[in-house]
């Protein structure tokens, strides 16, 4: 499997379109989280239901930053892994070149 550069660009553009289209099509939407709506649906099905356990740690205003922290962990992890593979492949190539000299 090897995708051409053009295929990759087209794929990235499709991703962009999928993200932008809902925001253009529904300019007034708040895009609130689906889990909050799920919670609301539970309450409408069973109004007497009370969540029986609370989160041990309430991040409060920090929540947004903690999500960014998680994103950063993931993104930098990916950069690190592919950087490692890239360096390793460069090193192997240099060794090959020296051997063939």
């Amino acid at each position, binding site marked *: 499997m090897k995708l051409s550069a053009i295929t990759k660009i087209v794929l990235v553009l499709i991703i962009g379109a999928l993200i932008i289209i809902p925001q253009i099509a529904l300019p007034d939407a708040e895009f609130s989280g689906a889990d909050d709506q799920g919670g609301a649906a539970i309450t409408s099905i*069973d109004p007497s239901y009370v969540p029986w356990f*609370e989160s041990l740690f309430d991040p409060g205003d920090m*929540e947004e930053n903690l999500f*960014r922290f998680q994103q950063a962990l993931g993104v930098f992890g*990916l950069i690190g892994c*592919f950087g490692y593979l890239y360096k390793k492949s460069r090193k192997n190539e240099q060794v090959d070149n020296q051997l063939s000299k």
Partner: protein
Amino acid sequence: MKKFKKSLTMVGILVFLVVLAAQPVNAMHIMEGFLPIGWAVFWWVMALPFIGFGLYQVGKIFKDKPEQKVLLAIATAFTFALSAFKLPSVTGSSSHMTGIGLGAIVLGPFATVVVGTIALLFQALLLAHGGLTTLGANAFSMAIVGSFVAYGIYKGLSKLNVPKPITIFLAACIGDLMTYVTTSVQLALAFPDPVGGFVASLIKFLSIFAITQVPLAIIEGILTVLVVNAIYQYKEKGLISNETLSDN
């Protein structure tokens, strides 16, 4: 030079993801305390054997296949990144991807159960997103159903000689979607509608979780194709050996 271009594409994709991070997430997963205690226990019991065998598999990777550790790291980082990106959807609400399909394709389903559960545990403890009592149910839908569906589709279509990019896309996309279908089933089982019963509840939860997820599942499918493609180029060079990621 070619290689440089390739890594540039990867960096481009990642920067693109960072730009998306404009809105942090608050979506999906069953919230803490929102499953009655019986169901919370039930899903924990269902999930534990998978997590246990998954841990055994991850241990085996560290012991016997150290060259696969980088794949484990990539799968974990991918799931961490994707499950923290809130994306708007056609339903006017938002949700996030799971990133599970990638792990299922490059590592197999059991190791991926561990990857997904770690991400869920992190979110439950630190972000009050999902929860400890609902971790069993959320691990079952995302880490177990998601990875086994993705793995099954990947293996099945590979046998049928479907082109690899399409196989990978469908595996990751449908795996993501089935996670949210499972969430809806779990909630409908716990909260049947007093009039319409399980089915009425299921339709209600599906319309919240699964329909919101459709465009996101497509995005996850495409991202997974791009990342597997990058991994595959390094596999070709002999830097990664693995059985799951078969040839062609």
